[in-house]
Structure formats: structure tokens, C-alpha cells
């Protein structure tokens, strides 16, 4: 059924230049002040939820919560703190007891531990924004916010036009 497929944050592996803009934007969005200048001096320090990781000197990629369909963290949580709300897997800090079971089962390694508050945290897809902060901040559009259908359609069209161009030459 094509009733508005949810949007996700996709990563285009060939585009990341390792500039870390997404990390900064994420931390600022999750700060109290939501301004870079004030965020840097806040205590506790604002936490980023996207991690630019280097695979080799020429390739990096931003890693963040995939909000898995069968999310291991959601089922593993021993406190009922993790649930799915409008296609986003969220941790309720009020219920989190800091047992780190979610950290133990996340196959992407993207659940952080907020040591000051003794709570787990992760990407919340920026509930206050139309487009997540990391996506907006990415200068090369390595991060895109689209539905799976839109995203794969884009890939198909690019591939098709490249093939067509190849045929012509």
C-alpha cells in the first residue's frame, strides 16, 4: 500500500568527505541552546548521535541509528524504555535505567551512553525539524532524507541515465 512511506536517513557511501559537519549539527540540535556558540560551553556537553567513521584513508561514512524494523534494542530492553513512535525507535530517558543492554545488542554500535545522566541515547531523527539536522548540514548530500521508494527510484534513474549516456558515446 502506498500510504506515505516513512522517510529515512540514507547514506551515500561515495560522497562523504569526512568533514564532520553532520556531527556538529547533530550535537547542536541536541543542545539546550541549539546554537553552536553556546552549545560548545554547555554542561553536560551536547552529544552527537551520528558518527563519522573512517574505513580507510580515502573513505569515511557517517553511521547512525537505522531505526530497524525488528529493532534488537527495542526487544532487548529490560525496562521497556525503547519503543517505536511514528517509525522512529526512541529511548524514553524517564524509563531508561542505564543497564546498557541496548548497547550490547545494537549491531551498528550507534547507541551512546550519557554518563552524566546515566541514560542511553541515540538518533531521534530530530523531532522538532522537518529535515534532520545532519542531513541539512551535509555539504555533499551524502546524507539524504527520503522514503525508501524515492531513494531507490533516484538510484535507478541515475543508473539508467548513465547507461543511456554510455550507449550514446
Amino acid at each position, binding site marked *: 500500500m502506498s500510504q506515505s512511506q516513512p522517510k529515512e536517513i540514507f547514506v551515500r557511501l561515495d560522497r562523504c568527505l569526512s568533514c564532520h559537519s553532520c556531527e556538529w549539527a547533530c550535537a547542536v540540535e541536541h543542545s539546550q541552546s541549539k546554537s553552536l556558540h553556546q552549545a560548545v560551553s554547555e554542561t553536560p556537553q551536547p552529544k552527537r548521535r551520528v*558518527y563519522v*567513521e*573512517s*574505513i*580507510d584513508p580515502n*573513505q*569515511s*561514512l557517517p*553511521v547512525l541509528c537505522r531505526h530497524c524494523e525488528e529493532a*534488537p534494542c*527495542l*526487544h*532487548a*530492553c*529490560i*525496562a*521497556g*524504555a*525503547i*519503543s517505536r513512535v511514528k517509525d522512529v525507535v526512541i529511548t524514553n530517558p524517564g*524509563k531508561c*535505567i*542505564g*543497564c*546498557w*543492554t541496548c*548497547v*550490547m*545488542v*545494537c*549491531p*551498528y*554500535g*550507534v*547507541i*551512546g*551512553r550519557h554518563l552524566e545522566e*546515566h541514560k542511553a541515547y541515540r538518533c531521534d531523527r530530530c523531532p522538532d525539524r522537518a529535515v534532520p539536522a545532519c542531513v541539512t548540514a551535509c555539504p555533499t548530500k551524502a546524507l539524504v532524507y527520503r522514503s525508501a521508494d524515492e531513494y531507490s527510484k533516484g538510484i535507478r534513474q541515475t543508473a539508467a541515465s548513465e547507461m543511456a549516456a554510455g550507449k550514446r558515446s
Partner: protein
Amino acid sequence: MAGPGKQYVIIGASAAGMAAAQAIAEKDPLGRIRIFSEEPDPPYFRPLIPFLISGRKSAAEMELKGSGPFQAAGLDLHLNSRVEHIEVNEQKMTVSGGETFAYDKLLIATGSRPHIPTDIEGVDQEGVYALRTLKDARSMAKRSEQAKQAVLLGGGLLNLKAAFALLERGLKVTLVVQSPEVLSRLMEPEDSRLIREALIRAGLNIKTGVRAVRIIGNGQGVRAVLLNDGRELASEMVCIGKGVSPNVDFIDAEQIHLEEGVLVDRFTCCNAPNVYAAGDAAVTFNPVTGEKVMTALWTNAVEMGRCAGMNMAGYPTGYSGTFGILNATQVADQPFVSMGIVHTKGSDYETHLSASSRAFRKVVFSADGERLVGVLLIGDINRAGLYRYVIRERMPVRAFKSHLINQTLHYGHLLKAKVLLP
């Protein structure tokens, strides 16, 4: 046949039973799901009950319904209801009181109960507990209002949690551990130094290498605990945490194969038709070693229960098994994760250790060094889930082995390995 929808009966309303019910409700909305629980309380997050003792959470805050994955409504829940007998040929079961329910699909998710050693005298007195149910927690909380000292027998995770709850209540708490060190099931004694230090810093008294022989009482219940070295520890309450045994006494072994717990295949199905089992009561397998294992872990029970629910609802789903050890928690100020094979003394596993004053890491590979089989992380547990993934998928580790050893592994390494591997 009986009614329009399938008749599901689930025995046990904790992690496995409720996860199964949730999966069934998602997959077969027309099915009728009956769940039977011996306990008087509606289903709750069992791992949270120590917080009732510390006073950090109320029973209402621990309720399962509406929390995390447990959103299903419309379940037919029978509390205070003990199942007496399953008649597999007729596909029905009987509860205490004699009422009988027919099933199309049945799940045994009866969990486990505390193992009470027979070599300790006086365990029947008032003030002696084994923390398993919300009811136990309420009794412990009540007694701790009057008590000044508590003795906890057993150095496992459950007792540590109970110990911290009682410390928070202001009691003087002594942990009596027969093994040379606490948490011996989850780590070797020489690997647990940071945990031991954290426990002592938090104010816990720990006596290792001794065991209780008698619990001494007076008219008001427990008064002291006598140890095998002749010492007597004054105490108004005792908590026994010596492991658990599966609740399978009601099962006729002629009809359903038991091997301590209920034996199931990879689709969580018993030998009897249309009977499934999951959670602490089930015997499952270790995906790394292939050995049969029984665990008593919420996380495993939910995963296995969900899988059983899918199978019962007609969606064949293989259970991927579990490691015998799969624990994460924080004791005092130290987080730790222990998973897979972490007891390596006298074995030929390839083991890499890293120890500092703040963190400890033990990474265990197969003898040929090609596969990761276990990891113990204390202090820094970041990205522990990647280790679990690598163990479980039995990935060849050569391409990123140094990152495993140094705990610098990230998802990019796995992605690269997966994409580039044949």
C-alpha cells in the same frame, strides 16, 4: 472447529510469554490469545523489581502493558492461575480448579524459579528470600524497613542488584560468595578486579570462598547467618541468589521431551505437535558451539518468545540461538558487558587482554584465531553490539582483527568486510 480464529494458549506471562503474545497479535489479529500466570500481578518487567526495594520505582511503573514492544491489547489474561496438566493428544490443558482450555497452539513459557540449596539449614524462616517476583520484592521491601543488616548468599548479578537496592535503603549488606570471586559465571576471578573494587567503593562487604551452613532465627525470623568457617554474621534478612531452575514440574515427560528444560527444535517447537516453548523453561542452542544451553535472561526470553509467537501464528521463523553468557549492566560505577566464551583458563583459545586502572578488556578468539568467540568489557563498553554481531554471524575476523582487539571496531569495518568478502 472451535470458533472463527485460532485458539492460542500461553502458559506464563513474563518476557517469553508476553513477547509471543505480542507477535501473535501482530500476525494473527483474529486469533484468540489466552495467557495464564501463577502470579497475582499483571505482567511486569521482572528485571526492575530490585527498584521496588530501593524505592526508585513503583510496581505500576514496572508494568509491561504499553511499554517497549508490549503494545498488544485484547489479550485474555488469567492471573493467579496455575496450569496443572497438558493433554497433548487432545490439545487441551487444565488449570488448578479443574477448568480446561483447548488450544490450536500452545506455548510453554513458565520461566524459572530460584534454586534453593539443600545444604543450608533454616531457609524456611521469616526474613529469608529469593528475589524472583514482585511479591518477593514487596516482602523484602517491607522487611528492609525494620532491618539494619542483610546477608546475601551468592555473588551473581541478581544478588548484586538486590545488594545495591538494600544499600540504598541504608542497610549494611554482606555478600557471601562461595566462589573465589563475585560474578564468577560471567568472568574469571582475575578479570573482575575492577568490579570488586567498585563494589567495595560502593560500601558492600564481600566474603568470598565461604558459604552459609545455617540461618539462625528467633521469634521475629532471621537473626544471623552461620558460615562454614564458624563465623556468625548478624542479620535480619537473607536473600538467596544461587541460580534458577526451569518450571517444568507440571509437564509429563512421557508426552513432552525434557532435558532439564523443554527441548525444542530451531523453530521453538517441542516434540509434541503444536506445542512450543521459549524463555527460561526452554532448552535452546549456542550458535557458536552448537551446544544446548539454558539461560535465564530477559533479553533472550523476549527474543525467543517473539520467535515462538511468529511460528505459532504460522510464520516459520528460525531462532538463532543464544550464547550461554550475554550480559550487560552497570554495577556501582562500572559498566560491563560479558558475552560468549570468557572463561579461558586452561583452554587453547587465543586471548587478548588489556588492563588499565579504569578499564579492562578480554577478547577471545578461536584457537586458530579466525573467529571471535567471546568478549569481556569492563569500564568502556562502547559499541559492544558489534562484538555480538561478529560472534553470532561467525564472521572471519582477519580483515578487522586488530580493531576487535583494540576496541576500535566500527560499523564501517563490518560493512567493508561484508561487501568485499566473497
